[in-house]
């Protein structure tokens, strides 16, 4: 089913990478009118200028409270907006809070028409969180590799072992003490610094 490309969507997100991932997804789905706001100064004025139908904002953003002002039906608010979710839709709230995103739509817009936007947003936010997780893991794995290499060098020097022997010694110690090899390597480095 073709999407409804005439929705104007604004992404409020200080993370340019996450916003880009989301924007790409929205464009692929046929939503061509997508703008990002990454700077929170004068947020409302900029939203009014863009006049979107849908606003997506990450939950780590303190400016989320600023958007809630747009619920007010007052002169200051040009087009009142509403929470995307309604009373009967607690699953959607749960899913979006878990993903770390919240959606607001112009009051009166049929929620079922926007549902694909939110679903896409949730899945992209989750994908971003997974990516970030993997990146963290890779980083710490790299760190650990460096620590193991240093400890290996110390063992080779202090005990006159070959590289393979030093590694086997650390691995068997780790297995015996039910610890990760990185932890054993770290304690070798710490001990050698104390004993220096």
């Amino acid at each position, binding site marked *: 089913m073709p999407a409804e490309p005439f929705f104007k969507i604004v992404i409020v997100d200080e993370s340019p990478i996450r916003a880009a991932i989301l924007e790409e997804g929205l464009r692929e789905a046929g939503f061509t009118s997508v703008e990002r706001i990454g700077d929170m100064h004068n947020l409302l004025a900029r939203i009014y200028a863009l006049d979107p139908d849908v606003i997506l904002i990450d939950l780590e*953003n303190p400016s989320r*409270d600023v958007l809630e002002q747009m*619920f007010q039906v007052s002169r200051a608010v040009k087009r009142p907006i509403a*929470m995307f979710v309604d009373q009967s839709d607690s699953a959607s709230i749960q899913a979006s809070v878990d993903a770390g995103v*919240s959606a607001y739509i112009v009051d009166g817009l049929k929620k079922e028409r926007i549902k694909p936007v939110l679903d896409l947003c949730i899945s992209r936010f989750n994908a971003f969180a997974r990516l970030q997780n993997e990146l963290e893991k890779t980083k710490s794995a790299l760190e650990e590799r460096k620590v193991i290499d240093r400890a290996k060098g110390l063992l080779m020097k202090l005990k006159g072992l070959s590289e393979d022997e030093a590694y086997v010694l650390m691995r068997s110690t780790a297995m015996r003490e039910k610890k990760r090899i990185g932890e054993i390597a770290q304690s070798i480095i710490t001990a050698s610094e104390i004993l220096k």
Partner: protein
Amino acid sequence: MTGHPLRIGFIPLVDASALIVAVDKGFAAAEGLDVTLVREVSWSNVRDKLNIGLFDAAHLLAPVAIASSLGLGHIKVPIVAPFNLGINGNAITISPALHAALMAQADGDPDDPMVTAKALAQVVAARKKAGQEPLTFGMTFPYSTHNYQLRFWMAAGGVDPDEDVQLVVLPPPYMVESLANGLVDAFCVGAPWNSVAVDLGIGHILHFAADILKRGAEKVLAVRGKWAEENPDVLVRLIRAHQRAADFIEDPANRAEAAQVLSRADRINVDAEVIGRTLDGRLKISPDGTLRASQRYLLVGREGAARPDPVQAAWLYAQMVRWGQTKLTEAGLKTALAVFRPDLYDTAIGIKGGNGHSVTDGIGAFVGPVFDPSDIAAHLKSFAIFRR
């Protein structure tokens, strides 16, 4: 032995102190509760996470608890407040330029909000005449005590908060920066942000919230109504831990330690000295070092502050009606009153009733008739400015 696990959300503000001290000084653990505190960045997040059950309890703006129970601005989730985390505690801070303009017009004691409200009306009129932009006031949330206190104050001087000035929501940590770079001319926010602005030399504290209302419920410990029904025993223990924390904080001998606990990076993350000033109610109000002390600046536990008072709920509901956020109905008032639960507090603390204060109508507003929760319509008619 591990305690009953609870996740509780909070915003880094000094009026979260009973909650933070209850956890960090071990009062919650002593009641068999294993509390994880979650520092949040927006009231919307706190509300949503409480509503959907990601939090068991939360440090929440009293009007948000009422709005959530009424289904205003969000889905309707009945919330109850069995413990009042703070009475008063906000302040109105203004830029040096606005301060100079107000003081030039002020006819009387500048601590008197009627004097400053009238001065504000003159400044607003002069700006209009000169074709200048309207003044902009920052506050924290549409359903906030800050919003209502600002409106109550300026309307008393004849300034219509929707017509004559701009009120904008700003996250508390952005207030100071926004005042510094001229995005707002003034703001109303809780501690420590007013003191931070004064210390930086970019703001003057014009009023303590206590100048406007002698007693204004500020933040509450909020739980879902359903959760309260399902966990009566845990709730009793949670209230008791909070009471012990409030008593601890209110003992002047413990102030320095309390401020230290609150200042931690994962708590309020502001210098302990600044937090101490707020707890003591001795604030530097001007960059020139002028001090002002008030016994009423922030009440954490004294004068019966911790006991939820339904009169406060009625007053906040009346402000929602006054400013067009909801229509006045019997059912709405009943819902609002039911948010504040002195009965739950009394059960936990083991005392019988009694408010422990001497403010006649429980509010003590600086202007207007004695507040009568049973006739909000008549009460509101006594004010010249309100959204009909």
